[in-house]
């Protein structure tokens, strides 16, 4: 530490940020953390003025420029104070922002009430004591009642502000659209106005690509009008039917507009549906919280009723619905969980078509689940019961409210046609089925059904299902993996055995072939080999020798003129069968050894010439004696040419045998 104080340091500014400039707290902290690393890059400056080394606070310790000239302790304190001040300021600023921009407080309130309730009730395995849950529901309802009353009051007070702000934003966007840099201005506007605007941004960007001016302005104007109208009605407390009518009116006018208005005449069908989607998106971004709160209020009783019913139905197994869902199968279980997640996601989405998307995804997952161990196409006969089963297992939050919201406020054509419409209808069917579920619809007597519902009895085989808790499931899946591994292991071993046998057989076959080949080649060698023995130097014609030998032969002749016989090397390498087949080679060598192949390196003084004597017992016993007696083993056996031919013949014969 002392070193830090005695020397004031500056960085060599390799990364462009010197410590002197680092007023930013994070920067300083970072530099502190990286002290060790930085010191390597620092140049040390000796500062003449000693007073500058001390802490600015005058505490007597040495200061450091890294800590703004304070010592470490004083710096920490000052830093802490500054941070606190900063926090307070930002808090104040936020409060100011809210009051200025007149953020309507209704949405946030109602949103919190609607979003906080689902998770507690969405537990798929809520078998807990019912008395607690009833109390909880009562409390929840009271709370939401309070909220409702509050929100009604607040709505009245804030509506004017809310309207004026939306009108202002509309004017603003009108101005913007004349501006070329509308995007930049939108940014500013979004930051200042209420947070809904940030949700529109992606669409505005998309739109700006196609229709820089008109569509953006047009949709905004129309949406704002519709929002105003709906809010007016909401304020008056009109029925959902009236609201639905207005919104459906809005959708159809917009659709007409996109189809007939000359400004949209270049729009193709893809862009057309995109425009409709995005209109719905913008509208629902602005209205979702209010509308959904209204729907939720109306449907609250039915939501709770359904939830309670589903909870009581937790004993239902797939065989009650005549479908095969083997939850012990790990893949099925995974897909089941996925479907449950997706159906529960419906509540968290805001735009009707996003909700529908979640339903479609869930349905697709269910199809995938049913497809396992089933090759035939899945029909509605299997799908609908499976969907019922998934819903009972998932107990999705606010299901009735969501269904009603989608039917009321989605673009009507979407619900009547297309995949989304179909799956949504199936969801409605499944929900209706659950609502009206009875012993008859599950093929059991009414008394049985009632006792199951009351929890007095459990259906046969239920305990099996109850084993499907998480550890058992994992054990099960591990078990399947293990058995699979064992099976594969056995297969490997089998394969190994088979291969070994094949190898053995191959070896035998090869050996047999080689033997026959060698036997036949032996005969051929005997037939083809002709030996020429050159007793006298005069018999040798040096011109027949290979060029490399001629020189050595000449020397050899000069050196040993007195010697009678000359033996010229046999190119033994020609005898090896090209090295490719060791077995062949070995066998041949064995064979050749058995006919007594002798190397005689008597001419060790001349390393160039490896002379050897080949004595073949079988064919030329006399020669052997003759050579050994003469004590001059150097006699030429010109074998090189004939040995190559035999070599080829051996190869050929082994090939034909194969």
């Amino acid at each position, binding site marked *: 530490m002392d070193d830090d104080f005695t020397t004031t340091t500056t960085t060599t500014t390799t990364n462009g940020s010197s410590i002197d400039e680092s007023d930013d707290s994070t920067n300083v902290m970072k530099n502190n953390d990286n002290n060790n690393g930085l010191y390597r890059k620092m140049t040390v400056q000796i500062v003449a003025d000693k007073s500058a080394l001390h802490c600015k606070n005058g505490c007597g310790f040495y200061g450091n420029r890294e800590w703004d000239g304070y010592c470490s302790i004083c710096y920490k304190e000052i830093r802490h104070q500054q941070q606190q001040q900063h926090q307070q300021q930002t808090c104040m600023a936020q409060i100011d922002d809210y009051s200025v921009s007149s953020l309507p407080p209704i949405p946030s309130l109602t949103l919190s009430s609607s979003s906080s309730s689902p998770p507690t009730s969405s537990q798929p395995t809520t078998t807990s004591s019912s008395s607690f849950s009833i109390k909880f529901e009562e409390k929840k309802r009271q709370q939401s009642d309070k909220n409702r009353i509050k929100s009604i009051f607040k709505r009245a007070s804030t509506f004017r502000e809310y309207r004026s702000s939306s009108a202002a934003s509309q004017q603003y966007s009108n101005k913007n659209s004349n501006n070329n840099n509308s995007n930049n201005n939108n940014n500013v506007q979004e930051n200042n106005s209420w947070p809904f605007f940030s949700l529109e941004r992606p669409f505005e960007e998309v739109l700006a690509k196609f229709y820089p001016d008109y569509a953006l302005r047009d949709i905004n104007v129309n949406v704002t009008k519709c929002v105003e109208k709906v809010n007016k009605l909401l304020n008056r407390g009109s029925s959902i039917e009236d609201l639905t009518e207005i919104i459906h009116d809005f959708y159809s006018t917009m659709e007409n507009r996109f189809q007939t208005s000359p400004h949209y005449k270049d729009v193709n069908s893809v862009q057309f549906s995109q425009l409709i989607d995005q209109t719905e998106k913008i509208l629902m971004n602005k209205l979702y919280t209010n509308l959904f709160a209204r729907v939720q209020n109306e449907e609250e009783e039915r939501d709770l009723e359904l939830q309670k019913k589903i909870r009581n139905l937790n004993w239902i197994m797939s065989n009650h619905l005549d479908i095969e869902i083997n939850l012990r199968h790990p893949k099925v279980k995974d897909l089941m969980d996925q479907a449950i997640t997706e159906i529960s996601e419906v509540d968290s989405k805001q735009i009707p078509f996003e909700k529908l998307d979640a339903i479609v995804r869930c349905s697709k997952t269910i*199809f995938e689940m049913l497809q396992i161990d089933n090759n035939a*196409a899945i029909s509605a006969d299997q799908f609908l019961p499976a969907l019922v089963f998934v819903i009972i297992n998932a107990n999705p939050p606010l299901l009735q409210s969501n269904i009603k919201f989608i039917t009321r406020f989605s673009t009507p054509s979407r619900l009547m046609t297309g995949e989304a419409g179909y799956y949504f209808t199936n969801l409605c*069917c499944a929900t209706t089925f659950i609502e009206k579920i009875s012993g008859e619809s599950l093929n059991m007597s009414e008394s049985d059904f009632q006792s199951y519902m009351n929890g007095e009895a459990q259906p046969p085989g239920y305990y099996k299902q109850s084993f499907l808790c998480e550890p058992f499931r994992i054990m099960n899946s591990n078990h399947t993996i293990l058995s699979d591994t064992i099976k594969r292991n056995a297969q490997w071993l089998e394969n190994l055995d088979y291969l070994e046998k094949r190898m053995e057989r191959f070896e035998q076959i090869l050996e047999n072939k080689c033997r026959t080949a060698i036997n036949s080649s032996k005969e051929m060698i005997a037939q083809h080999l002709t030996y020429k023995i050159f007793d006298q130097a005069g018999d040798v014609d040096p011109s027949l020798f290979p060029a490399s030998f001629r020189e050595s032969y000449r020397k050899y002749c000069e050196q040993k003129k007195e010697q009678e016989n000359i033996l010229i090397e046999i190119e033994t390498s020609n005898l090896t069968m090209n090295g490719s087949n060791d077995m062949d080679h070995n066998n041949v060598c064995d064979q050749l050894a058995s006919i007594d192949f002798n190397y005689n390196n008597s001419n060790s003084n001349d390393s160039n010439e490896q002379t050897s004597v080949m004595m073949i017992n079988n064919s030329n016993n006399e020669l052997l004696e003759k050579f050994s007696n003469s004590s001059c083993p150097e006699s030429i056996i010109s074998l090189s040419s004939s040995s190559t031919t035999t070599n080829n013949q051996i190869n050929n014969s082994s090939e034909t045998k194969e």
Partner: protein
Amino acid sequence: MATAISNQKSGQQQFKIVLLGEGCVGKTSLVLRYVENKFSETNQSTLQASFLTKNIFVQNIPITLNIWDTAGQERFHAVGPLYYRDSNGALLVYDVTDPDSLTKVKVWIKELRKVLGNDVCIAIIGNKIDLLSGIERDQMNNALISEAQSYATTAGATHYCTSAKTNYGIDDVFLNLTKQMISFSQTQQLNPRALNSTVTRGISIAADNELNDPNDLQSKRKCC
């Protein structure tokens, strides 16, 4: 009420056809045979057969058929109306070897007429005629089929015999039904008011939407 959804931008007309029939009468194989020309014995790849679309040209009009399969089990009978509301056509399938399936068809037709009135084109289909034998097979007729035919005439429906296995008569069913639906929607477009008055409101939200046209103009006037 059951007007075809038409998208003027693409000129595409969409019809919704609902497929009704007891379990195991071959609804799924019938529609799979039509849409993908597959029979379940060879079918491996199709993930689902409950919602299928088919694009066809009839009388030079591009048509999209949305074919909705329904769960045929008795326990789901009560939710039927949810399926077939807003549908333009209905295919009621029975098994020519199973008299019970025809009685179910009769029940459905009554319900369809009750909910949708005369707005829906109904075709009754006797499936699995490949299972008939002897003279019945040669004449494509037996007691059940003739009963169905006479019932069809009284109920204002058309009757067909098909076999999903041998791909007999299936294209005709869809083609004729589509033609019926086209002519029906054309007459409906000519005098929409008259038809709307005959339809009972309230069962479906689509009814609200249908009556929106006059309100539409008013609301436009109001807001502008």
